[in-house]
């Protein structure tokens, strides 16, 4: 995918945004820092959504925007959209509207679902023509097996009629023929090869990246639709696609923390045989990922610390630097500072 296009879509005109962090957020690199910026930029719902794509070099992407006058760039690869950048952003966002449907890609492995679906379409399409001489796709050993098993279990169910009807309903339900055409071009089967994103881009006059984002969006919609239907013969294709909210290790730490009677990070570090700093990182990850009321802030932040922080905090708590805070509150720890930022941010979101 073209990273400069993504930077436009996920950029902002009123906030300098870290190009590196945005790329890492979309790629799903789970560090406390990336998660925090995800929260701060309101991009947490897209965390890891584009993990399967090659996103390219951030410096080159930012340079492209800068040269085209679409963004201003400052040290540390911070960029801010210009008014022309915002125009372009609006145009892109309009062609992937509503953007927030991409959040599904962060919750479920939609790319994997799309590969399964496309492969299943090929198998059913060729079968409906009684053709067994064709080159099957390969989507990895386990999913190849899954499709095979699924097909053997379901081939008596008149799958070609089912698929035709499903797609007829789904695509006409989009009420947008261009989107429906884009979706259909992702399929392949008997006498129809399908199109690549760049071939479609030429035809539709859209960016290849926009085509790919639309595919993700449409497959997300299809996935959710099928997921609601307990009768669908495609049940097996929907299995094992949930992405965990937190890393397994962070979840273990958090679960332990809320289950012991007198929770204390040092004890948890001993129990789990991990470093104390790791415990803090895990707890921050949990705080970022969980709704405000599900995380026990009061157990980790003293009332007095909160009062001190509130008094010292600037208007924009999100961009507040630890160094500056520490200068005002002598015994402040980074962990407390970050938790405070997270809770303030979440309170703001809830209001």
């Amino acid at each position, binding site marked *: 995918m073209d990273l400069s296009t993504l930077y436009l879509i996920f950029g902002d005109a009123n906030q300098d945004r870290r190009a590196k962090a945005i790329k890492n957020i979309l790629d799903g690199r789970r560090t406390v820092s990336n998660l925090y910026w995800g929260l701060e930029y309101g991009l947490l719902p897209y965390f890891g959504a584009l993990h399967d794509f090659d996103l390219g070099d951030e410096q080159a992407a930012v340079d492209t925007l800068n040269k085209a006058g679409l963004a201003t760039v400052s040290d540390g690869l911070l960029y801010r959209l210009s008014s022309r950048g915002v125009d372009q952003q609006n145009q892109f966002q309009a062609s992937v509207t509503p953007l927030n449907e991409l959040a599904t890609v962060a919750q479920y492995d939609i790319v994997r679902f799309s590969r399964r679906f496309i492969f299943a379409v090929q198998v059913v399409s060729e079968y409906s023509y009684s053709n067994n001489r064709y*080159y099957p796709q*390969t989507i990895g050993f386990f999913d190849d097996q899954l499709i095979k098993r699924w097909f053997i279990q379901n081939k008596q169910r008149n799958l070609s*009629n089912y698929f035709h009807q499903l797609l007829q309903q789904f695509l006409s339900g989009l009420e947008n023929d261009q989107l429906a*055409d884009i979706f259909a071009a992702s399929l392949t089967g*008997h006498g129809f*090869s399908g199109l690549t994103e760049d071939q479609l881009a030429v035809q539709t006059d859209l960016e290849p990246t926009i085509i790919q984002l639309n595919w993700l969006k449409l497959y997300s919609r299809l996935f959710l639709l099928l997921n609601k239907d307990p009768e669908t013969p495609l049940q097996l294709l929907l299995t094992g696609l949930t992405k965990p909210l937190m890393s397994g290790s962070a979840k273990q730490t958090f679960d332990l923390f809320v289950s012991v009677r007198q929770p204390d990070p040092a004890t948890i570090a001993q129990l789990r045989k991990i470093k104390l700093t790791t415990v803090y990182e895990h707890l921050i990850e949990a705080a970022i990922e969980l709704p405000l009321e599900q995380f026990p802030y009061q157990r980790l932040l003293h009332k007095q610390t909160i009062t001190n922080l509130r008094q010292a905090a600037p208007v924009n708590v999100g961009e507040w630097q630890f160094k500056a805070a520490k200068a005002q509150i002598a015994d402040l720890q980074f962990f407390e500072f970050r938790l405070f930022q997270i809770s303030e941010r979440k309170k703001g979101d809830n209001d």
Partner: protein
Amino acid sequence: MIDLTAELHRYLGFDSFRPGQREVLENLFAGRDTLAILPTGGGKTLLYQLYGAITHQRVVIVSPLISLMQDQVSRLQYLGSKRVVAITSAMDFQERAAILRNLNHYQYIYVSPEMLSNRNIFEMIARQSIGLFVIDEAHCISEWGPDFRPDYLRLGRIRHQLENPLTLMMTATATQRTRDDILNRMGFTATGVKQLVLPTNRSNIFLSAKICANLPEKNEQLETLVKELNGAGIIYFSSKKQTEQIAAMLSQKTDKRVMAYHGGMDNQRRFLIQQQFMNGDIDIVCATSAFGMGIDKENVRYVIHYHLPDNIQSYVQEIGRCGRDQQPSLAILLYEPNDQYLQQNLIANTIPEEQLLRYLYQHPDKLQNNDAFRVIKYYYDIGKTVDQTLAIFDQAKSRRIGELNALIQYIYTTGCRRKLLLQHFDETVEHVDPEFCCDFHTDFWGNWRQFNQQYLKSSETDQGVQSTDWHQIIDKLFLLKN
């Protein structure tokens, strides 16, 4: 005696064998180890597939190209065998473990020589009964060959450890020297193995080369050819990046449908482009040599080389991808003087420099787990001194340069190109049709448009335009039943 033609029809639906296929199978059924030199498109896959189908025995195929192994699996599935699997280093640990656990479910097992050298994997394979042991691209075994793979040298011992199963060694082209080397390395004597060498000559492919003054002229020549030549074509490049650049240029400047293809693309994309090419949705593929193996397109009308191929053997293999339907086809080699240096650089890049070699000999731990140093590691492990290894690489380098010179000679020749090509394989042509042989006998470059009209026919099946309307697409995809 088995009625092979009847079995061919029964299992694969074909009515007749291609040249050489029957003889190879007869040898295998007589229990003779066989070395088969069959030209590209000669149906090598069919040999072991049919043997497995008739005998119901397990076939293990050693194949060198990981990126193409999956193509071969698909190809076998395409031809009707379903219990096929490939074990490659490209799969993750869990996938591989699952396959190894269930190995006895598979009748056709593809494995790379590197994987077979892995103790664990070897033992799992050795536990299976093996009816036929196939070594594909057997020329990789030869140090004289350009594709030398040290792991191939272990195959002789591995075969022995597998208790000497019936063995079929195959390659598309091999000189006498390479053939002797293959047998020697595998521990066979020349009399112990049946050798079957099919002629390399493909009389339905017209041979031509064009020397351009410089790069712009070459590009212009390519553009003109692509605009006018009839039918489907493949253009070969030695660089991945160039496949994309020239494909973009041709798409823009001609009304042909052109796509790039190379091994660096992901599976989905490669699949799609192959599919489009086979279905006639695109006219031309700009490709690296990775393209062609998994393709079963009979009516490719021309192959153009934009860069020099590795050597004469590769050239013969690559042009062999046109005209499988036996209809008149065209091979063009485009050349401009700088191409020679490009190729020299490629050679220099694949052969390690003295400094690096000496460094690695002093730090042998750096040889571990690095694919780039596989060949060096091999010589290090068998106890060659740094100077001996250096000498081997020097020799390899001069051999590659010799091969390059042979190609240059082919380009600049003032005689019959076919004769010159076939000399490399100790072949002579008895009858040359001066009307349809090469650009030595006729003024091809003055009359190529006429040649095009007369000989190159575009296929009716390739005329189709893919619908982009979703209603039509889903109606086409699913044949409805009541």
